[in-house]
């Protein structure tokens, strides 16, 4: 039985490296030396990074004042929602023993406020906030329309629950005179949020641009009156509003409120001395057992004053070194035993 030679060859796979599975390959072999040296180097790196992070976190100065209880009469007033139009102010003095050098940031911090609740996170309308379609309230249940059926701008539960306390920091120059510390309202939100994601609709005149919409039920003023002094900070592009709309991941969170403006007495930061916070208490937290506080803090390259990353790296580095020494000991002991065994 003869077969034509071309018949045989056509069935053969090509003699290329790919088809014959003969591609040049590097064989990954984890030998003992590689593993042990890897563990050692990782341990060194983690310990070093941990120490650096801890040192930089220690340099941060932070002052936190929880004012839920300190302004207890205001808190009680706000528990009854009928008192919404009664203003309540509260003044909290405190003392800075050391100067806070460099840039100082003021945050408000909330405890027990679940901005990460699923229905809450969904309740917003990005097309409205981008200025594309101001009447699109489709995702904003339960704050879609006002009681007259007019669409709310900005709609949704996130916008409705905006943090509306006003916090003013004052510095006591001497026993009789106190000045307001100059703070900047701008530059507290992400650039992409302020200039791309949030955009005011239509024309220059904001009140006419927002015609045909209603303010959210919990707001005292409509959105185009958020900052009448600065048109760049009014309407949807108001930075406090943008910062609030970026929902936090955990029930305890702090959001940037103001930045120190380094002019006049404060070119080097906040000098030591006595200060006070003047708070207009509007945001009710006691009903859901939440708390709020104000935080003044300097920052370093690694962010806020959280010691977690530094500690985690140090602990990991220590454990890795421990594992390295243990594995090295085991490896050497067993190697001795093996060479003895082979010699026999």
């Amino acid at each position: 039985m003869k077969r034509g030679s071309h018949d045989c060859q056509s069935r053969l796979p090509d003699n290329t490296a790919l088809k014959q599975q003969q591609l040049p390959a590097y064989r990954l072999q984890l030998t003992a030396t590689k593993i042990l040296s890897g563990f050692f180097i990782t341990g060194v790196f983690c310990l070093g990074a941990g120490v650096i992070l801890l040192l930089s976190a220690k340099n941060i100065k932070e002052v936190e004042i929880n004012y839920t209880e300190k302004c207890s009469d205001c808190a009680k007033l706000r528990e009854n929602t009928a008192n919404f139009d009664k203003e309540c102010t509260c003044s909290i003095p405190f003392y800075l023993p050391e100067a806070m050098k460099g840039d100082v940031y003021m945050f408000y911090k909330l405890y027990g406020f679940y901005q990460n609740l699923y229905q809450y996170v969904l309740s917003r309308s990005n097309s409205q906030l981008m200025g594309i379609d101001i009447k699109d309230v489709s995702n904003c249940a339960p704050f879609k329309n006002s009681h007259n059926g007019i669409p709310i701008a900005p709609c949704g539960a996130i916008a409705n629950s905006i943090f509306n306390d006003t916090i003013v920091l004052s510095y006591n120059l001497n026993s009789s005179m106190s000045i307001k510390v100059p703070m900047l309202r701008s530059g507290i939100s992400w650039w992409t949020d302020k200039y791309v994601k949030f955009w005011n609709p239509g024309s220059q005149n904001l009140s006419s641009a927002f015609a045909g919409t209603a303010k959210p039920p919990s707001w005292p003023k409509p959105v185009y009156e958020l900052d009448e002094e600065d048109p760049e900070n009014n309407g949807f592009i108001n930075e406090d509003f943008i910062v609030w709309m970026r929902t936090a991941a955990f029930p305890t969170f702090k959001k940037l409120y103001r930045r120190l403006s380094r002019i006049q007495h404060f070119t080097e930061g906040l000098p030591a001395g006595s200060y006070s916070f003047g708070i207009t208490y509007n945001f009710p937290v006691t009903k859901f057992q939440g708390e709020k506080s104000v935080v003044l803090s300097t920052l370093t390259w690694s962010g806020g004053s959280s010691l977690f990353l530094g500690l985690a790296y140090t602990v990991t580095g220590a454990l890795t070194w421990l594992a390295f020494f243990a594995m090295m000991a085991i490896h050497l002991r067993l190697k001795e035993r093996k060479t003895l065994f082979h010699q026999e």
Partner: protein
Amino acid sequence: MKPQSLLESDPIDDYLTTKPRIPFKIPEEVPSGNYGLVINGYSLAHALEGNLELELLQTACMCKGVICCRMTPLQKAQVVELVKRYKKVVTLAIGDGANDVSMIKAAHIGVGISGQEGMQAMLNSDFAFSQFCYLQRLLLVHGRWSYNRMCKFLSYFFYKNFAFTLVHFWYAFYSGFSAQDVNETWSLRFPELYEPGQHNLYFNKKEFVKCLVHGIYSSLVLFFIPMGTIHNSVRTDGKEISDYQSFSTIVQTSLLCVVTMQIALETTYWTMISHIFTWGSLGFYFCILFFLYSDGLCLMFPNVFQLLGVARNTLDWPQVWLSVVLSMVLCMLPVIGYHFLKPLFWPVRVDKVIDRIHHCMSHPLPPRIRTRLKHAGSRRSAYAFSHKQGFGALITSGKTLKAKFPKKNSFPFKK
């Protein structure tokens, strides 16, 4: 037949009398000497009847080798099916003629030899090649690799899915020496390396539980490390980093880096293709990430693509990358440590064989005397039988055998 088989307590007798519903498997037995069984088709016709087939199987399994000759194609298939039904094994049938087709189809794995007998065996088989001797390579090299790779894939698949899904689960509480492998030459020389496949060692319930545990541990690391990093934190310029969208991006990036490292660890042979797909898929993730979070797409569909600018704002801060690196270290080091320590403390037969291989490699033996291998190359095998005149001369002329060694074989073998 052994004397005990006449007793009522013998399991086979018990089966024959009661015929229970559950499938019956013959227990393993070790014979006291070396036996072989030769049976021809005519006798097989009687031996495969009714109750005698179990006796035949039991006897045959106690022999070192069994030769059944002069069988009809149907009998070949019946023998294979007999073994399949009553023994817990994987069967392989190899044949080259049209009369072997039923046997090839009956076995778990059918291997066809393409050659003088035609194409039928090849067309009906799972694997086909041209020489019987390639069977050794098929089993010990390709079969072993295939099993190892399948098990690695399954473990990795389940681990990756557990790691990812469980991260969601943890969030809800808050709103939420490798097996040192060997190359082909060694796997042919040490057939014991094939055993884990036979005993189903690399992916069974125990391995599944192991990768479940690994997935749970990874998910804990992948959730709590980013959470701790951003919990009370802000960026260096004071702006937000602890928001929901940034958190999810950081967790996602950590997860992808960790599982890529895991698969890099599992890959034994790194060809250009492995490099392209492994690192390429990680790079592709970042491309897709930036695309999905880009201005253009989010402006076009604002209510669908909501994460505008998150990647740009999150992924260029040192604390985020430090957290990713820490997650990678915490996930990978225990795995590497386990691969290092396991062959030392709980060596399996495979590890012991690998030890022997390493020992051989560091103390090479003098080259073996070649005469025995030469004989194997020039021995005429007895597999060919002719049912038609004219083939004998062709076979004995040696033209059908491939030259095994580049040096010319100067042993003319005369029948």
